[in-house]
């Protein structure tokens, strides 16, 4: 099955789903005797063979420490690691390489900002704004900062559809607001937030904005210049790359004004007991030997995405999402959680009278992998007065046939729980 994308700029590309599925070795296996239907992409995505091979070839051919050797292997590893920085810069259209900081993942990126930006700019009585739909990783670091500084965390409420109430957000910004930290796409509701508008409102009051793009970067084009965000974070493993590597984008002037996050090797220019001079960006924020193979293989993941085209991925996934959304919502006694007009990648639901964990176990019998639980968004669960939901989340290799398999399996849940 190949879907022709008839758009002038994309006319030379096709979205060949059979070829794409073939690129992901893990999809070829049987789970409980059934072909694997992997619908837990918001938790982590599978890796194409090129990424897997890259990790292997790194250890077979160029393993060595980076940024510190005159020998050939160290230079090769450094060049490949730094090549990823450039690929990330181009992918999100950052201004220069100093703005791309490698971290362990989105959680680490947010903690870096909370710690470093917080240390410099947040004082007693100041305010940080987040929303009710944040992942715990965009709540807890700010709570820890507020506790330390005696600052206040303010929360933008969401409506019954799972959308931010923008009028309430506007009222929350005061002269004491130091940062707005907001998720681009909700991992438990699928809501795409109007981040451009949110950033514009904050900037009109000179407040910088952090965008958590962990559930956005893999689904559609992100241009940090167009958004004008001050920080942007994402994880490598949710964008078809390895675990243990992530990115913090920050505007250069802002990053330069912030103190280092951790101290150690790589982040210094010179060390003595009388005076230590910190390194320039991005090294200032990258203490210690990083996850080198993951950094290199993340570059391969972006090569893979670029070979298909993020616009083509968006078109294909939009068509798949619309198909799934219509069919899944039509299931009798299924209640969707998160019915925003603008959604991406995720369908969360509950079944009347059945706990989501039981749904997850029954679907697993049919080889269908979904996430059940609170999705690290307990305030969202509280908002909808639920202990948990079942969540289907899509990747570029999913198909309508897989959606049909999942729907059949969801209907089977009612056969068990009559």
């Amino acid at each position: 099955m190949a879907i022709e994308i008839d758009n002038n700029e994309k006319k030379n590309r096709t979205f060949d789903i059979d070829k794409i599925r073939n690129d992901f070795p893990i999809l070829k296996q049987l789970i409980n005797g059934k072909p694997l239907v992997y619908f837990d992409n918001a938790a982590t995505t599978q890796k194409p063979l090129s990424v897997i091979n890259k990790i292997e070839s790194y250890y077979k051919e160029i393993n060595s420490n980076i940024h510190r050797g005159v020998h050939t292997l160290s230079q090769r590893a450094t060049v490949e690691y730094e090549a990823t920085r450039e690929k990330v810069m181009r992918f999100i259209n950052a201004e220069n390489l100093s703005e791309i900081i490698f971290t362990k993942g989105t959680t680490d990126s947010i903690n870096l900002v909370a710690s470093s930006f917080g240390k410099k700019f947040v004082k007693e009585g100041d305010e940080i704004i987040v929303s009710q739909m944040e992942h715990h990783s965009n709540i807890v670091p700010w709570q820890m900062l507020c506790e330390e500084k005696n600052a206040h965390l303010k929360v933008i409420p969401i409506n019954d559809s799972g959308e931010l109430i923008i009028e309430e957000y506007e009222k929350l910004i005061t002269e004491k607001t130091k940062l707005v930290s907001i998720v681009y796409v909700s991992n438990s509701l699928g809501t795409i937030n109007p981040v451009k508008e949110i950033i514009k409102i904050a900037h009109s009051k000179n407040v910088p904005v952090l965008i958590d793009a962990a559930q956005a970067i893999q689904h559609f084009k992100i241009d940090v210049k167009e958004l004008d965000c001050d920080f942007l974070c994402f994880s490598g493993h949710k964008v078809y790359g390895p675990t243990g590597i992530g990115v913090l984008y920050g505007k250069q002037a802002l990053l330069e004004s912030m103190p280092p996050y951790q101290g150690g090797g790589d982040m210094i220019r010179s060390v003595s007991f009388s005076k230590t001079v910190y390194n320039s960006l991005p090294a200032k924020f990258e203490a210690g030997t990083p996850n080198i193979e993951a950094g290199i293989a993340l570059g391969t993941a972006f090569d893979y995405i670029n070979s298909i085209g993020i616009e083509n991925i968006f078109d294909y996934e939009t068509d798949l999402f619309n198909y799934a959304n219509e069919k899944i919502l039509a299931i009798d006694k299924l209640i969707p959680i998160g019915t925003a007009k603008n959604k991406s990648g995720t369908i969360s639901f509950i079944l009347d009278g059945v706990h989501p964990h039981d749904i997850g176990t029954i679907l697993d019998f049919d080889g269908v992998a979904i996430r059940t639980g609170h999705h690290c968004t307990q305030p969202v669960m509280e908002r909808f007065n639920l202990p948990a939901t079942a969540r289907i989340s899509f990747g570029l290799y999913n198909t309508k046939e897989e959606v049909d398999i999942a729907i059949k399996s969801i209907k089977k849940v009612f056969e068990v729980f009559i």
Partner: protein
Amino acid sequence: MNLDLRELYQQVILDHNKNPRNFKILTNYNHFAEGYNPLCGDKIDIYVLIESNIIKDVSFVGNGCAISKSSASLMTTILKGKTEEEAKQIFENFHVMITGKLNEEKSLEELGKLAVFQGVKEFPARVKCASLAWHTFNAAVKNEKTVTTE
């Protein structure tokens, strides 16, 4: 329907899930604990009345999957009238069974109604669902306020 699926969700389990027994807050109790399963978000409160080393009454309220709810329900029906030592022994046998380490038919017989949970051993991810109520009961008896299964 898949046989393994029926093995896990036996009729007794489905019945206790739909109509949980002793699903209430005791007005007269002298032991209490709340149990959490942080990864799932499950929460259960256990109320116990022990007099002269005998479990006179036990009840629960809370939220969880069919396995955890029915396990709590069955537990309350079984523990009433038992001594603390007997309760401890039953939990030990139960835990051995759901983690798949039971190999004597005799022990299975002793477990009586609780044997309906033997399918759980095929689902390592669900062991903590089946054992949450029991861990919470233990905490209540020991006068520990909260317990988690992680």
